[in-house]
């Protein structure tokens, strides 16, 4: 096993990996930018090195600086986490060239999966199902025949396209001709190329992904699926395992396809194969993520495996310590991604100082967090603060435990999306497992009434008692606001203990 591992990341995932290192007797090396000197991962690691300014391209994305730290600190391996350099094949190659083991797949596998067309060719050959379609440009006649064959609705897409330009949904044969002409002219205007191809349009798709693991000795296994349909602006918000619609048989078929994908890519280490699932529960390959996923904890809870431990062991050359038939999915786990964003202001990021943090615990609750009380959430990076995961013997119990934990959770000073999860978990469609990628947009479009708003008088009494005890904090609004708005300010001193106890004493006059 490695003696020392560098973690080329920050936030909750860096803390997650540092914890695994400590459990395995591996020394951890953290890296940090100017604004992360006080970040939790720096506090938790065995070693920590400064790598540059706040801008990610000059710090967490700067491969040269990270490799330089790896040399100076005598690291043996580099764990990239997710995001940043985790899916950068050039970085993986540079690690290998410099003599460090990259904890992840080979650069060749990453390159193959990074290119949509190359991935598609290889996967077709391996018999992986794709959304039915033409793959290449067609003329109108060929398109009519193909649309008839795969069935309406269909989608026209620009061959050179992206970003929704040159895309047209066609519901019935009569609309195909004009949609074809429109898509062609829009593609010509947007990309200078008027070729369009045709794909089946998946109505109300679900997003379900399969976790796989492969060692460097030709063994691979699937570790169950994750339902990731609850999304906002194509960003996952909540994930669960197992998926409410996947049964034993579907899991086996999806898992076997995912393992075929991994083998066709000569894949090593942890990976995720993403599928689109239609209303008839047919599944189609979307892409492969060649890294550890944000939502890996739900898989850990239902399989009992530690994926980061496994990553280390596989990267160190060990064989997978299990066979496919040893993998059992037990219970149900749901993850909430807690972001520093303001639900009352269109989910705009809300950086600043965390003035108060009350964290939930208790049965069936796991919290992977990168924040602490007094810490300043920087504006430069992804606003993910923590992941709150509920586990139970079944889906209902997992939901109930999560709701209880969300009730306990309090993050003061900044805004978070915690209230959004209360809303999702209460929704009848969510509770029934009726999900698709449009679920959250529909939920947010509905009017919302907080059910738990019964104590305005208690709020008034509480405010008055606070005002009596601490008139300054109640009446001078300017000071409180500027301290948290200014990211560079020195942390305001917390009320000293003797003052706090004196005030508490005053409350209970004898």
């Amino acid at each position, binding site marked *: 096993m490695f003696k020392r591992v560098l973690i080329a990341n920050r936030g909750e995932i860096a803390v997650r990996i540092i914890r695994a290192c400590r459990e395995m007797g591996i020394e951890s090396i953290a890296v940090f930018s100017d604004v992360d000197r006080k970040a939790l991962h720096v506090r938790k690691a065995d070693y920590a090195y400064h790598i540059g300014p706040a801008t990610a391209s000059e710090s967490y994305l700067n491969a040269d600086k990270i490799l330089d730290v790896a040399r100076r600190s005598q690291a043996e391996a580099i764990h990239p986490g997710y995001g940043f350099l985790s899916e950068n094949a050039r970085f993986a190659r540079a690690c290998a060239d410099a003599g460090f083991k990259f904890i992840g797949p080979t650069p060749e596998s990453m390159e193959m999966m990074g290119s949509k067309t190359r991935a598609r060719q290889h996967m077709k050959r391996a018999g992986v199902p794709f959304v039915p379609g033409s793959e290449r440009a067609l003329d109108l006649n060929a398109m009519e025949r193909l649309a008839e064959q795969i069935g309406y609705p269909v989608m026209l897409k620009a061959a050179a396209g992206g970003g929704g330009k040159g895309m047209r949904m066609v519901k019935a044969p009569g609309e195909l001709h004009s949609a074809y002409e429109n898509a062609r002219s829009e593609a010509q205007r947007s990309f200078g190329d008027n070729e369009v191809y045709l794909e089946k349009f998946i109505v109300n798709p679900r997003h379900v992904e399969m976790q796989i693991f492969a060692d460097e000795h030709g063994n691979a296994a699937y570790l169950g699926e994750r339902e990731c349909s609850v999304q906002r602006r194509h960003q996952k918000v909540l994930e669960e395992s197992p998926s409410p619609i996947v049964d034993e048989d579907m899991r086996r078929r999806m898992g076997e396809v995912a393992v075929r994908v991994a083998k066709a890519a000569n894949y090593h280490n942890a990976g995720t194969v993403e599928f689109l699932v239609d209303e008839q529960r047919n599944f189609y390959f979307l892409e492969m993520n060649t890294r550890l996923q944000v939502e890996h904890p739900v898989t850990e809870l239902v399989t009992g495996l530690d994926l980061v431990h496994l990553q280390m062991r596989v990267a160190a050359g060990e064989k997978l310590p299990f066979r496919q038939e040893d993998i059992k999915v037990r219970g149900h786990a749901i993850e909430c991604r807690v972001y520093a964003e303001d639900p009352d202001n269109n989910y705009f990021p809300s950086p600043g100082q965390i003035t*108060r943090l009350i964290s939930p615990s208790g049965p069936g609750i796991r919290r992977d967090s990168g924040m602490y009380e007094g810490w300043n959430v920087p504006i430069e990076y992804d606003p993910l603060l923590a992941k709150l995961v509920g586990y139970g013997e079944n889906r209902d119990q997992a939901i109930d435990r999560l709701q209880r934990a969300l009730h306990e959770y309090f993050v*003061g000073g900044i805004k978070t999306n915690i209230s959004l999860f209360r809303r999702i978990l209460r929704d009848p469609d969510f509770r029934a497992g009726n999900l698709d990628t449009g679920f959250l947009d529909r939920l947010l479009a509905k009017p919302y009434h907080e059910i738990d708003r019964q104590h305005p008088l208690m709020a008034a009494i509480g405010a008055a008692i606070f*005002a009596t005890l601490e008139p300054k904090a109640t*009446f001078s609004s300017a000071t409180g606001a500027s301290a*948290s*708005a200014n990211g560079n300010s020195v942390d305001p001193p917390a009320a000293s203990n003797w003052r706090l106890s004196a005030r508490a004493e005053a409350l209970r*006059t004898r």
Partner: protein
Amino acid sequence: MTYDVVVDGKTHQLELTHGEKTWLCKIDGKEIEVDAALTARDVLSLLVGGKAYEIKRERSLQGELHMVIGSARYAVDVQDPRSLRTRRAIAGAEAGPQRLKAPMPGKIVRILVQEKDEVKAGQSILVMEAMKMQNEMKSPKDGRVQKILTAEGSTVNAGDALAIIE
């Protein structure tokens, strides 16, 4: 102590007196006995007739005072009617020019009004980008745009005045 406490726009008259071990609280003419304990900074435990409440106090970035009970958040404003300072603050909140300030560092993407335009409270004045997200900044009051202090494309710091609404 006597206060006017505004909760979600409704004003409550409140009179607080120390009792033997608890507080006597007269709210809107009704008397309630409250056992209160400050358990940590900004966290108050109240016992009222055996019912327990945990109340968290928070000051928002815009300077508003919030009380959080369970999962409900109440915007409150505490006024001490005898205090000259709060009387002035109340008067100042509605009258006179107000500055629209940047809540965080970012870039001004678009300005949606011109100087001298009439605006309503809550109307979008400009669009700001921070953390790769765009956000509309809204007018704090009904009035007229006296001055725009920034330009499209310029970078601003937290607390910078962006416009003055009079």
